């Protein structure tokens, strides 16, 4: 926050206009927008307030940025949480996200109409685009002067330096005749004065985006939306774990009970916004038995097919250096030879050593000197990865397990299994990316089967019988309860979710202001 700003505070007995649970991509833009329009807002954040220069590139210590309340992962593709999924602290997952910021493809809003599979969004790209552009403009996104798949698009900042993996992926694309570009990245490449925050420096190519940006280059909530919210009178309360939603006799929400430093507190509110992510938001609703007349809370859990392919090169690659995932191709958004619906984006991958080693360790069974040799190949390794559509499936969902956490609340059980469409996409990508690396002389090519991100679980739509919230994010069951995060996505789409979450957040704020 700007050091000159004094944050307004509210008494717990005040009935504030809105309590927002979660301070990341879903909660922060909405909180800022409500506050800017004169609403009284309290943001409850379970994690602490970090300082940028206090972040460390040490991957073990940087786990402090992850949501560490234990989750149980099941299904035939049990998903790894921790590093890749869900953050904690003021700023939420944007503290550790990779800042890869593609826009959703217009076709992905209408997947069911196009293919008969999946689900349509209740609106199209044209509805979300103005909000997308507002987000990009306010937080700062870098990109190329000419974006091959959308020539009209403009970015305010030049791309950061292309690292080894980005350059290698360009070669791989050229070898197979694919178009490529510098991808949209939510970081700034020159120093600026961010309104309500202060100086943000241009990207220093340190490569530790996932461990927290130390100089403010990466565009998160902590250096954009949250300072704006505070400047307009919102109160941010870190270290507050919300667990109980209170209602009056008519069923409307009256307040939230949360624990801070071991003590229970109660904040009264006229409106409640859940922005805790696709696991914690449905968990809150399920534990409070709320807003679930559709039976859809926790259902339709989706991820992204996030297959990676790594190779070793003769050169000194040093994959920790530079923005990790600069090169993009959108040529596989609807590949002609696809035996699946939807599509995928490809990005280059640099990576920090323990994260890279974890992927290697979990995807192979090598042992002894061969395992040591594989790890010793770190500095010669470059990767590519995809983010691809994942269809909703009835067996993929978030439910409450029989185990309780330290607060006495059931731990969430997340079941995740690939279906035929996800496997077909994985195989297509594994084959293509392997051929790209082979074409430019990579050795020891290794395919890693993995899924990333968390999407769905409180679907938005027009029909109250099959959706949890309406197309603005408002609960069908409780008129002063709103959801603003990726749990309302009807389909996964291929793009990384942060940009759409923020755009929807602004749109939901607009809808709230009109009520």
């Amino acid at each position: 926050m700007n050091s000159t700003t004094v944050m307004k505070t509210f008494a717990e007995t005040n009935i504030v206009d809105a309590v927002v649970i979660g301070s990341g991509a879903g909660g922060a833009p909405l909180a800022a927008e409500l506050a800017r329009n004169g609403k009284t807002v309290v943001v409850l954040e379970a994690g602490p307030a970090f300082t940028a220069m206090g972040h460390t590139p040490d991957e073990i210590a940087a786990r402090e940025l992850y949501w560490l309340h234990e989750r149980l992962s099941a299904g035939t593709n049990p998903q790894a949480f921790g590093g890749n999924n869900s953050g904690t602290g003021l700023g939420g997952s944007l503290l550790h996200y990779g800042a890869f910021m593609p826009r959703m493809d217009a076709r992905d809003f209408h997947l069911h109409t196009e293919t008969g599979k999946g689900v349509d969004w209740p609106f199209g790209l044209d509805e979300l685009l103005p909000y997308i552009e507002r987000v990009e403009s306010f937080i700062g996104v870098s990109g190329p002067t000419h974006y091959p798949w959308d020539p009209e698009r403009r970015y305010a900042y030049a791309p950061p330096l292309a690292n080894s993996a980005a350059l290698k992926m360009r070669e791989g694309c050229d070898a197979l005749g694919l178009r490529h570009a510098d991808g949209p990245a939510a970081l700034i490449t020159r120093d600026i004065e961010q309104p309500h925050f202060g100086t943000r420096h241009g990207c220093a190519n340190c490569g530790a985006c996932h461990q927290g940006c130390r100089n403010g280059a990466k565009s998160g909530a902590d250096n954009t939306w949250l300072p704006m919210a505070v400047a307009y009178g919102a109160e941010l309360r870190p270290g507050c774990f919300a667990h109980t939603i209170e209602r009056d006799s008519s069923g409307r929400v009256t307040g939230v009970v949360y624990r801070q430093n071991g003590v229970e507190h109660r904040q009264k509110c006229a409106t409640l916004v859940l922005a805790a992510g696709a696991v914690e938001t449905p968990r809150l609703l399920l534990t409070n038995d709320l807003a679930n007349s559709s039976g859809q809370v926790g259902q339709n859990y989706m991820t992204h097919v996030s297959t990676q392919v790594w190779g070793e090169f003769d050169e000194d690659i040093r994959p920790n250096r530079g923005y990790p995932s600069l090169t993009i191709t959108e040529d596989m958004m609807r590949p002609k030879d696809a035996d699946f619906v939807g599509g995928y984006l490809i990005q280059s991958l640099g990576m920090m050593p323990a994260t890279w080693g974890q992927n290697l360790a979990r995807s192979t069974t090598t042992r002894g000197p061969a395992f040591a040799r594989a790890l010793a190949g770190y500095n010669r390794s470059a990767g590519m990865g995809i983010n691809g559509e994942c269809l909703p499936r009835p067996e993929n969902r978030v439910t409450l397990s029989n185990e309780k956490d330290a607060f006495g609340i059931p731990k969430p059980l997340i079941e995740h299994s690939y279906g035929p469409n996800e496997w077909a996409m994985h195989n297509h990508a594994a084959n293509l990316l392997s051929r790209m690396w082979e074409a430019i002389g990579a050795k020891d090519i290794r395919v890693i089967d993995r899924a990333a991100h968390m999407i769905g679980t409180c679907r938005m739509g027009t029909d109250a019988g099959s959706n949890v919230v309406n197309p603005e994010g408002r609960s069908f069951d409780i008129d002063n309860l709103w959801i603003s995060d990726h749990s309302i996505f009807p389909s996964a789409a291929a793009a990384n979710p942060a940009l759409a979450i923020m755009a929807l957040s602004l749109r939901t704020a607009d809808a709230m202001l009109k009520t």
Partner: protein
Amino acid sequence: MSVCPAARSKNWLPESRPAPYRKRFGHAGYCIFAASGRRNHHRRRTLKPKHRRPQCPPPPDRPEILDSDHLSARTRDILTSRLSAPETQPRTLSLQAYAVLDALLPVLLPLDEILPPGTDINMTARIDAALSGPRDGWRFADLPPDAEAWEAALLTLDDVAAEQHGIRFIHLAPELRGTLLDAMMTGQLGLDRDGRLSIPQMARWAGDLRGEVVDCVMSDPRVQQALGISSSLTGGDTVFQGFTEVGPDSREDFEPKATAPLAQMADSRE
């Protein structure tokens, strides 16, 4: 417990000891009793008490990356803390399970071609301690909580060793230890009884084991130095330098060169 692996390890022996002796045991020198109160268990009969050798030798040469001004003070403290073993061992596991872990690590991931001779990064102790610390926020639903799963998995390996070979896991020759690990990783080893893990559970846990080992290794400053990894050197506290060169074959002067025999190929091209 009848064996202390460290008592016959290279670390306990003088640096001048011939390598073949050290290699005979194929052990990287993890001491399961260090700082556990059994202070004299390494003492040779020929040594008088006043000449006792230290059980856990001081760390080898301090990795140069720790003195770089491209390192923040916080990161330096974090990395430096890994140079010494946790004070209490074992902290999480039983002595029996700890000894199994100690005996499997050098078979799973030998570090003698990565680290300088005589370097002990205290993997067993660090992993055992990590199991009692904050975890990474999730676990496989078909495994019990981490500390319990590790205990059960390691005892499963010990029981299977006894059933198949008539001796405990720690007494098996390295080749046989490796065979059991391979069977575990490929879904062929497990026990259907209380306090042990079944075949599918052991295969799941094998991934957790491998991941934990890699976390421990790749986050160690001695390993980063030996492999020439500059990931900790993102920038100091007063000047946040980052990197100015990020393309292939462009190591900057402050970045370490690989010294490990396994990793020198790239640097030798310069």
